[in-house]
């Protein structure tokens, strides 16, 4: 593996981990919005 390949591998590893973090964050926000919407609706869901 030459220098360019190592650089590309390092870049791709960093990018992959950032993508996982962003996916996790988005998933967390989806869950947060869902849970908080249910909490805010409270007993008025059927209204």
């Amino acid at each position, binding site marked *: 593996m030459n220098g360019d390949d190592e*650089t590309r591998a*390092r*870049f791709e590893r*960093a*990018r992959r*981990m*950032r993508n*996982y*973090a962003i996916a996790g964050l988005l998933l967390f*926000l989806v869950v*947060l919005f869902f*849970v*908080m919407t249910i*909490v*805010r609706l409270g007993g008025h869901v059927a209204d």
Partner: protein
Amino acid sequence: MTAVVETQESLAVAEMSFATVGDYFALLKPRVMSLVLFTGVVGLVLAPGHIDIATALTALLCIAVGAGASGALNMAYDADIDALMSRTKGRPVPQGHVTAGEATAFGATLSAAAITVMGLFVNLVAAALLAFTIGFYVFVYTMWLKRKTPQNIVIGGLAGALPPAIGWAAVTGSLAVTPLVLVAIIFLWTPPHFWALSLYRAEDYARARVPMLPVVKGKPETRRQIVIYTLLVVATGFAPVLLGFAGPLYLAANALVGLLFVAQSIRVAAERDTVREPEARRLFGISILYLFALFAALLVEQAAGLAQVPLLVLG
């Protein structure tokens, strides 16, 4: 043709971002964030009224993310001076791991998200206070005061002092004397805390041309100011007892750790100017212990029902 291909490859490499998730986490200043979150928790727990656990956790998440976002925006703007100081040169932006633009985008996105979620799911008063806090830290402290005046951390300290008020507002949707007293304590605590740091980092600040008090007025004046502010914060620390929202545990914490804080500030005042400033280093640690002891005592008393929180609501 080969030269063109090589140039394009060089550009492609230059445009590659090698920033790790850890670099972005470091932009959030996690240690500062933890102290902000802790004081926010105390404001939230002391507040009268009911808040469900999901809303409380959301409010605390917004406070933590807002604090982190402020840190990222601060690091983006201060990259030039951070690169000149040994304490901060290892940060992601001066290291070149994250560009200033990326840090700005990260901080701005998180700020907008924290304020929006606070406004949507907690209440507008808490969201407005959070927005004010972030704006004050970024625009007033970072962009204006920090490079202009030795009073930078005195006035700028307001941003770091507000989290208990945000926590309180998350529950009540208003402000009261109780959280404002806590804000006053942190506000007065900030100068001796940061001036202790600036005493043993004076060369750093001078190199970066940041007008901290030891650089502009000299170390003897800084030592004098540290004693004055330490006396002020410890005296103000008795206000929660006088106002009736703190009990014997808090009183003991303020008296004992406060005495330690004042004694150490006097040792700093008596110390000769040196590069290492060992007494100032100890004062920095003791100042953190002092604030932690006070707020932990409030939390414990609240949990044990040792103190009643008066409802002196403003507005």
